[in-house]
């Protein structure tokens, strides 16, 4: 069934994007957009691969990937929050930094073999027709993301902690009068976002592609940032969005393996066009849902 194959591919390929999008949701809920998400994914992918190659344990790799992603995001947080630089421009520069550093220090790991995450079909569930292969025949990081999205939703919208984060994005001044530091909250949110993006990169290198190569994220971090916007900063909607893009990426090989030929460049552009289309359809409605302080970044990019 091509339908099952594409959706299963959507879940597999969408997971890295999902982690990054959940991380970015956290950061943007606190009022900071980070276009350097792509860079955090790259550093995460390399660190995870390198540590997995060194230790033989992919979980140690994921830990390292998370730390590396968080570290790069900390550069963004410092430049933006403590030095007052433009968020969007800094994000891009941070991406440049991540891409440069990973190709500088990653060369040694191209072609190194690792023992990656293995797929673990969940007994029983994986045998359900359709849903089984689509949802329950993956690696542990995919399953972890099933838990992460609702957990983040609960944290953001049902816990006191989430209220603090969202206040940092909506009304930092009010938050300050209650004795919280919006600056600290934003730092933690941005770094936490980079941490999740790093795990997304780790999924790419140690569970999905099982290889490291410079620039292997190929724009998936940008898609994650765009996705957060049309998912209206909502963790559960981000899940659907991430799988939609995963599916857009999985469509081309699924068609070709069955002997259907289409213009490959049109298919290659499809995920980006789908993203833009989603932003158009949902954009007008969704920007109303933007954290208020963040929407100022969107409405008007300060030129300083």
């Amino acid at each position, binding site marked *: 069934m091509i339908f099952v194959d594409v959706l299963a591919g959507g879940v597999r390929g969408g997971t890295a994007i999902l982690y990054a999008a959940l991380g970015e949701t956290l950061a943007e809920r606190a009022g900071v957009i980070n276009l350097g998400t792509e860079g955090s994914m790259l550093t995460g992918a390399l660190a995870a691969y390198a540590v997995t190659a060194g230790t033989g344990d992919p979980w140690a790799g994921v830990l390292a990937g998370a730390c590396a992603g968080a570290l790069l995001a900390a550069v963004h947080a410092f430049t933006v929050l403590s030095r007052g630089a433009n968020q969007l421009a800094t994000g891009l520069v941070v991406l440049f930094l991540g891409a440069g550093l990973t190709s500088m220090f990653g060369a040694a790991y191209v072609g190194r073999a690792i023992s990656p995450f293995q797929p673990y079909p969940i007994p029983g569930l994986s045998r359900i027709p359709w849903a089984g292969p689509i949802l329950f025949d993956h690696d542990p990081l995919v399953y972890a993301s099933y838990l992460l999205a609702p957990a983040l939703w609960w944290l953001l919208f049902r816990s006191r902690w989430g209220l603090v984060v969202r206040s940092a994005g909506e009304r930092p*001044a009010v938050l300050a009068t209650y004795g919280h530091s919006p600056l600290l909250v934003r730092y933690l949110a941005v770094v936490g976002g980079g941490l999740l993006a790093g795990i997304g990169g780790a999924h790419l290198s140690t569970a999905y592609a099982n290889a490291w190569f410079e620039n292997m994220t190929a724009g998936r971090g940008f898609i994650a940032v765009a996705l957060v916007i049309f998912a209206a900063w909502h963790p559960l909607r981000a899940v659907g969005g991430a799988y939609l893009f995963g599916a857009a990426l999985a469509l081309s090989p699924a068609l070709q393996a069955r002997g259907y030929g289409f213009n490959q460049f049109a298919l290659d552009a499809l995920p980006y066009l789908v993203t833009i289309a989603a932003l158009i359809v949902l954009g007008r409605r969704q920007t109303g849902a933007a954290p208020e302080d963040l929407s100022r970044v969107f409405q008007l990019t*300060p030129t300083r």
Partner: protein
Amino acid sequence: MTGAAVGAAEVRPQTVDNRQRSWPRWAAAVLAAPLIFGAFAAVKGVDPVAMYADMLASLADPAQAQTVLVRAAILLLAGLAVAVPARAGLLNVGGEGQIVIGAVAAAGVGLVTDQRLPGGLALVLMVVAAMAAGAAWAGIAAGLRLTANVNEAISTLLLNFVAIDIMLGLIYDPWKDAAGFGQPSSRPLEETARLPLFVTGGTLNAGILLALLALAGVWFATRRTAWGFRLRVVGGNPEAARRAGMRVGPLLLSAMLVGGALAGLAGLVHFAGTEFKLRPGMTTSFGYVGFLASWLALHRPLRVGLAALLLAAIAMGGDSLQIDSGLPAASLNVLMAVVLLVVLGTRRHPGRKS
């Protein structure tokens, strides 16, 4: 420090003129970056002093100097393509795609006209087509921003990927050079329709004049015209601009269109001045480096010129990083990113009243 003030302040719009007195800090920042990068090099086991000496020495060669100018012309246009929308508060990250589309349009017109029309006329048509196409590509993002509220930083970024797919789709099939041994590239542009060279046998072409002309035009338009003034007001505070009766939408659109046209022109200069045919990877990140140039220059036109020259020189000196110091090519990205981070982070903090 009070978190509230800091948190709220970094997204508060600032007028462009707040940056006027920033240049000593700017210069200090630019000088600080080589120190940081030198540390990176030292980690990789390279003597920083010898590295910089080799870099500078490699730029002294006249052929090398010509190439720096050729690249600087393209980066200047790509930088202005970011700077003009930025005056109005728009973030154009789509320079790369607009350059590609500009080159595609130039190539399309060139392929049709270069053997039928006098070279000069063909070239003029190519300039017009490249600028129009670049403007149209940027116009998509501006239109989406105004009608569907899609953030232009995101849309221009995504459109870059689409633009490259369009070019690849053309050079792999309809525009593929029949005499090109099956290579994915368009037929080379006739010599008559190319940008003229300053020195026969050299590389420096008339693109630098186009770039300087554009620089003068942008400087004049942003500093001396009502349009430029309005852009700055909109960029400083769109709400105030609206209350003052300005039509914000058309102003934003015009800024983006001008930016796109400048990037399209960069595409033409690269195509008709250096490449002469479309091929995969021909733009080598000019759009992104141009973006950095504009931010390095705080979007001030004359300084964009300086930044373009500096980044072009760094890129050329980058060869020496490899040949003389044995550092990987990606070191260049790290060097540029460090320069930019230091500049972005050294700007006077607006929320801190010291």
